[in-house]
């Protein structure tokens, strides 16, 4: 059963345990009812994620509560590699070693929902671009561009965190 993965994703979409659990229950209920529509041999996990995301989208729509796709204040030309080179940070591993997981989670949670969704489905759940496109009902190119933007945004946030934790190296 993919309950944990679905709950993890739902919690990051809704931000609350209660809402996430309700969303997962609704997802499984719909999956049970629509099980005859599942094609054996296809990715069951991806199918469940599709249902979950649709449920979430319906809820957002009914609540008329949609967040902006773009995160304000992002610099689209930001390049972390340029900053690392400029500040002579020799190893990416050092960068990650000095960035606490809690701060990474916080940075991910601050992404707008469409971007957060692609990051979670790709990097945490290991879905392919094609599968993500099906789950989110968006074109493949949109998945790529959202993922690029999301990573760029994350880079900026993590760079700020890194500078706070490694002031000598990074300033």
């Amino acid at each position, binding site marked *: 059963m993919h*309950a*944990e993965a679905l*709950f*993890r994703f739902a*919690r*990051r979409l809704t931000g609350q*345990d209660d809402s996430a*659990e309700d969303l*997962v*229950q609704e997802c*499984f*209920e*719909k999956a*049970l*009812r*629509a099980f005859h529509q599942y094609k054996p041999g296809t990715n069951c996990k991806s199918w469940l994620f599709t249902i979950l995301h649709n449920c979430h989208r*319906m809820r957002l*729509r*009914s609540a*008329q509560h949609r967040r902006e796709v773009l995160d304000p204040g992002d610099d689209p030309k930001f390049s*972390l*590699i340029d900053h*690392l*080179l400029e500040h002579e940070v020799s190893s*990416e*591993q050092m*960068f*990650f070693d000095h*960035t606490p*997981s*809690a701060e*990474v*989670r916080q940075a*991910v949670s601050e992404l707008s929902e469409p971007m957060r969704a692609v*990051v*979670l489905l*790709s*990097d*945490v759940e290991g879905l392919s671009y094609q599968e993500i496109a099906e789950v989110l009902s968006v074109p493949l190119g949109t998945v*790529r561009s959202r993922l690029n933007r999301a*990573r760029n945004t*994350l*880079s900026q946030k*993590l760079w700020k965190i890194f500078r706070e934790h490694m002031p000598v190296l990074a300033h």
Partner: protein
Amino acid sequence: MQCPSLDEVTPAHLCECERCRRHLAWREGLREKVRSAESEVTLPAGFQARLKARLERVETAAERGRWAATSWAGRLFRGLGLAACLLLACLPLLLRSQGHGFQLSQALAEHHAACWALPANSQCATDVAHWNEKHNGPQVRVPLKDGFVEKERRICPFGEVGLGPHLLLHDPKGRQASLFILPIEEADGKVPQSLEAYQMGSQTVAIWHSPKWAFALVAAGAKDEVTQWIQPALGSEQPWRILAGH
């Protein structure tokens, strides 16, 4: 050097370009960092039990549906329901003619009785959501106050004729009632201009329309009583809400 995107970068290019190597290493590192940070998840206590209970309820409801499909009593109910459904399937045709109000009311009253007799089928909720999306219909739940209380929404299985939802309601006196909703364009714009009400035994069927929707309320009671309930809804684009409030 012109660098390709990371998704298209070749090994040969990586050998030559330190920037791309580091960029790739960064991306992989970021993926790993996000994965490890986000993977820690603890399901709330009792999560599995609550999920299991909910799915069992769904299965029980499905069993009841199967019973309706296989047992003789179930078949009888189903037969009645289907017969009424077939009658109601003629709704758009009937709505084209103002002179057919009585037959339409009869069909609606029969469908109302048959549909209430069928087991609850909450599976239709999915279809209602789809219908709402397709028709840009009311997205909010009916804010039920004193008066009508919504029990269930259904899209009946003859939905190919383009009918809207059938709301099973309890009227202000707690009796069974039904509200049928149909987009006006599917009624060909020939719904009676003013409210029409027909007495069907102990029930009244009231038919009216707004600029965009056609409606029919089937409720127990005399004409006067039922038509009073729908007066505030006349001409409104949101009669669900108004009806629910009365």
